């Protein structure tokens, strides 16, 4: 590879041709501050709009300062990253950004976890000149079921826009207006609720300020936990245990399942259950549906459509209900694990503990913001009472544990309660991209071939590639599987399906890059996607350590079918564990 040499702050560094000044400096361990910049290496996207100008450096012989994040280093270049001129410019620009930003850090949801705040500290900002005459941008606050937008705090880094459009291809957000009025917003500056937003929360995950945050339900939870009349049941999603530790200073990829269970119990939950159990249930329903559709299709039933698409991911469900309304009959009708859990908790389990539905509060801990919206959907309510009352994110749980004066690191480990706490390795891997389909294959293989799997791990299905495919030999029949994570990748597969070009029998789709471990409710990775890899590894570690690794072997699953549901896809199962999809796209109404 061709390399060049340049001098940064009097140190010579050799880098490959095409390297930016910012990255060349990194090689020298010179940390030039950045604000709008975001390197999503794993996704092949480097967001460097050159908008904030905080990373400006002085390049000898150049008339003006250069944004280091997007300026290519050249042979012989002489760069200064902390000259007086640079320091003054950086500080002045920061003051400008802050002059149009609220100063109520003390009560901001992002306080302590805010890139802008950190930068202000780093640059030693103590005063913002001419505040008395400086007009501030003001916008209406937007409360959606999942995401809260406070655009007063938007600094136009445009990261959310990149996530929403380039990564997710959702297109809900765009820069609108011009100049001082410019801001990132949905069409017509309407609320997210009326836009094509899927609540995947990837915008929230990258927002450097408090402009985009989750709809926080912790205060409601604290009230319910304190209410003796309520039986509060909690379920925790697989991806949460692989990331929660990060909020307590643990290395990314540390599994904290046992500590988390203890913490939840100490917080006062009456029953601590596992969404993984419901994931096993999902496999029973979804896997059966897959085999049913497959068999009918192979038998020549033209009404049966393939591929079947997974339906556990609520962001993904929102996406196709908005943008692929012609394909509504393709996804599996199985509810997501969160909702299966809720439906069972407020029926089967409520009967067991002899509680009335309305006296129960079912809470979910999710790596996801779309789950907050999902549990409010009318399809998942009985007489107005939701199966899952509300969902809180991994970040909210961490904050709550801290608020309750606990430290997860020092927590002893304990096990989930039964009967809804026992799960298999198949349920665990739901948290990573490819996991749902791998779990389904483990079961489908054994059910279809009536043989034992020689090897449980389907490594060919795993990985971080945006779109993957695999073939599984089901005793002579080759099952073709497609996997996409990130809605932008999903769109590509769906367009093939729409065009009739897809050869897959089953496709797994997760809205967030990396799957649930990269969800919008997870600890912020600040653009560093290596974190996602570590979380994924943790998930597979947990799976490998499980004594049972196939959903249909979960004894509590077998039990519920015997005692309550009958068999997969039975009428009762259909009523409690399946759903239907509706066209939520904008319809243009013709008038006479």
């Amino acid at each position, binding site marked *: 590879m061709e390399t060049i040499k340049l001098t940064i702050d009097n140190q010579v560094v050799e880098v490959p041709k095409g390297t930016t000044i910012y990255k060349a400096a990194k090689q020298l361990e010179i940390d030039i501050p950045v604000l709008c910049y975001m390197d999503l290496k794993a996704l092949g996207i480097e967001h460097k709009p*050159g908008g904030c*100008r905080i990373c400006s450096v002085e390049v000898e012989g150049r008339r*003006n300062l250069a944004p280091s994040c997007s300026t290519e280093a050249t042979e012989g270049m002489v760069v200064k990253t902390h000259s007086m001129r640079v320091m003054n*410019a950086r500080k002045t620009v920061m003051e400008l950004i802050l002059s149009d930003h609220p100063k109520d850090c003390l009560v901001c949801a992002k306080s302590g976890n805010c890139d802008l705040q950190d930068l202000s500290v780093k640059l030693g900002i103590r005063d913002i000149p001419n505040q008395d005459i400086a007009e501030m941008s003001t916008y209406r606050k937007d409360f959606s079921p999942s995401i809260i937008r406070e655009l007063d705090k938007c600094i136009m880094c445009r990261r959310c826009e990149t996530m929403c459009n380039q990564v997710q291809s959702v297109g809900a957000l765009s*820069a609108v207006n*011009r*100049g001082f009025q410019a801001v990132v917003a949905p069409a017509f500056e309407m609320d997210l609720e009326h836009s094509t937003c899927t609540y995947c929360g990837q915008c929230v995950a990258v927002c450097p300020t408090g402009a985009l945050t989750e709809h926080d339900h912790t205060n409601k939870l604290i009230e319910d936990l304190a209410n003796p009349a309520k039986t509060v049941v909690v379920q925790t999603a697989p991806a949460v245990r692989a990331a929660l530790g990060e909020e307590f200073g643990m290395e990314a990829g540390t599994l904290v399942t046992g500590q988390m269970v203890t913490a939840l119990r100490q917080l006062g939950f009456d029953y601590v259950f596992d969404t993984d159990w419901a994931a096993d249930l999902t496999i029973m329903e979804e896997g059966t549906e897959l085999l049913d559709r497959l068999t009918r299709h192979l038998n020549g039933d033209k009404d049966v459509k393939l591929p079947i698409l997974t339906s556990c991911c609520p962001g993904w469900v929102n996406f196709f209900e908005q943008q692929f309304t012609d394909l509504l009959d393709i996804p599996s009708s199985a509810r997501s694990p969160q909702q299966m859990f809720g439906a069972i908790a407020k029926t089967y389990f409520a009967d067991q503990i002899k509680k009335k539905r309305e006296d129960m509060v079912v809470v979910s801990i999710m790596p996801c913001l779309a789950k907050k919206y999902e549990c409010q959907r009318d399809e998942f309510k009985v007489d107005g009472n939701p199966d899952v009352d509300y969902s809180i994110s991994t970040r909210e749980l961490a904050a709550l544990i801290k608020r309750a004066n606990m430290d997860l690191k020092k927590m002893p480990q304990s096990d989930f309660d039964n009967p809804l706490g026992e799960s298999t390795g198949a349920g665990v891997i739901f948290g990573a991209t490819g996991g749902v389909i791998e779990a389904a294959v483990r079961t489908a293989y054994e059910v279809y071939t009536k043989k034992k799997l020689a090897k449980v791990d389907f490594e060919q299905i795993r990985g971080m590639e945006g779109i993957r495919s695999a073939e599984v030999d089901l005793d002579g029949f080759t099952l073709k599987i497609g996997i996409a994570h990130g809605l932008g990748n999903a769109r590509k597969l769906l367009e093939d399906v729409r065009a009739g070009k897809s050869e897959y029998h089953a496709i797994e789709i997760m809205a967030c890059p990396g799957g649930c471990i990269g969800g919008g409710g997870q600890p912020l990775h600040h653009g560093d996607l290596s974190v996602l890899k570590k979380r994924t590894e943790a998930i597979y570690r947990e799976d490998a350590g499980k004594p049972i690794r196939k959903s249909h072997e979960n004894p509590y699953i077998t039990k519920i079918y015997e005692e309550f549901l009958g068999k997969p896809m039975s009428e009762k199962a259909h009523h409690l564990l399946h759903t239907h999809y509706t066209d939520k796209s904008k319809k243009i109404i013709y008038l006479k």
Partner: protein
Amino acid sequence: MSEYKIHALVCSGTGCRASESDMVVENLKTEIAKQGLSDFAQVVKTGCFGFCEKGPIVKLIPDNTFYTQVKPADAREIVEEHIVKGRKVERLLYTDPDSKEAVNDSKSMNFYKKQIRIALRNCGVINPENIDEYIARDGYEALGKVLSEMTPEGAIKIIMDSGLRGRGGGGFPTGLKWEITRKEVNEQKYVVCNADEGDPGAFMDRSILEGDPHTVLEAMAINGYCTGASKGLIYIRAEYPLAIERLKIAIEQAREYGLLGERILGSNFNFDVELRYGAGAFVCGEETALIHSMEGLRGEPTLKPPFPSVEGYLKKPTNVNNVETYANIPVIFNKGAAWFASIGTEKSKGTKVFALAGKVNNVGLIEVPMGITLREVIFEIGGGIKDGKKFKAVQTGGPSGGCLVEKDLDTPIDYDNLIAAGSMMGSGGMIIMDEDDCMVDVAKFFLDFTVEESCGKCAPCRVGNKRLYELLNKITDGKGEKADIDRLINLGSVIKDTSLCGLGQTSPNPVLSTIKNFRNEYDAHVLDKKCPAGVCKSLMVYEIVEENCVGCTACARACPVGAISGERKEVHKIDPTLCIKCGACEERCKFNAVIVK
């Protein structure tokens, strides 16, 4: 064969059309027909003569009689007197503002004397809607020569040798730009004509497109041949309907003649041109923003490199030049690089078109050789300052430029000298200001423009210009503090230093250059709370001079806010806390008893 013995050239540019020049054309035709002289005299709709101040213009050829401010009703007299009887219509002749004498021959008008018209050579001479007239004046000759006699490299060498630099503002060597695009290996390349003239007060591109659209098409085709592009795009402001119309006609005619299309003039070269419309965003004059706009996106600039020459429209190599630059190209091939390079200064060759505006007698469009002085432009061509007032400053380069003052008047105008003097060439706007203009207010006016036109992408421009404006407003409001001027300077320098594109990198220029040249005016506003030019309302105080007041109550009755009190026949008083400084009292007083301090 009877060719016309008299040509009546009537300007039908936007300016003159706004004063009914179309009717003038119609009436002239009718009157000529009435006299049975339709074979003898011809009426030609042409592009702009540049002398917009006195439009509509009718010029009679061959004796170069220059009639100004011609109304449709004047047509009859022009025909009956001049065309029939050979007698000039005295009252319509241009009068020299100095000698107060009527000028018989346009060539002896000061306005035209020092001009050299290269880019504007056909404006006001040919009918822009008739390709034949363009061809008659050597049109498409350059394209023909390039296609049949030159290699792309050879043709680019001529442009390099001519020393032509981009006329859109940056002054980048045109030949070099072409060469970079030529060297890129790609099966699809584009050439783009930047006709998104947004600089308020500059309208040379529009005039060229309205007056001589074929020159742009010809130059783009040459550009296409040299760079290996088969497709040309003209990005033009939607606010220029007439230019768009004329371009459409020109493209149609050129296609019909096979001068656009496939295998042009028997060569293997294919080239065609399409129009793209701007939609009112000044920043789209910046190449990368322009390209994004053509792609159907928000016109936000992106960092260069990659330069459009390497990665432009639809990610293909794209050569972007502005209208005036293109208008020079055919002439360079027809008259030679050496001829072109003989005009101008060492580093700035050829001519530049300027739009003279503001407090100058002859407002209009002029083309002058590089190296001419501001004094010549303002006082000779421009005919000096209006109403005999005193020259104060001239803003060159539009909102991105800076103001130049008395001491700069004898500096030869070229790219480098203007930058050295703290301003820039820009697209060629030239606003002349006199003693009645407040420089703080002027800086504020330009800032208002950049604030509104900033795209909002980068922080220094989006927020910084707004803050600059607010500081200026504070000063003109009489609330300025001494430190504010230093803040303006620091903020302005940082905005220049850190902004993403040319707009932000130049937007503080009006502020910085007025502070540099008129620090005393800023000080007067801040320290003495006075506006020396008497422009800033908040700094004015209306008072009644006791000796002069007769107590007639006229002022009190005129005051819309009841700020004036006083009994009949007694001295009146103005309450400064109520006064809104509307000036009604001063206007009404017959005894000079109301004064402004």
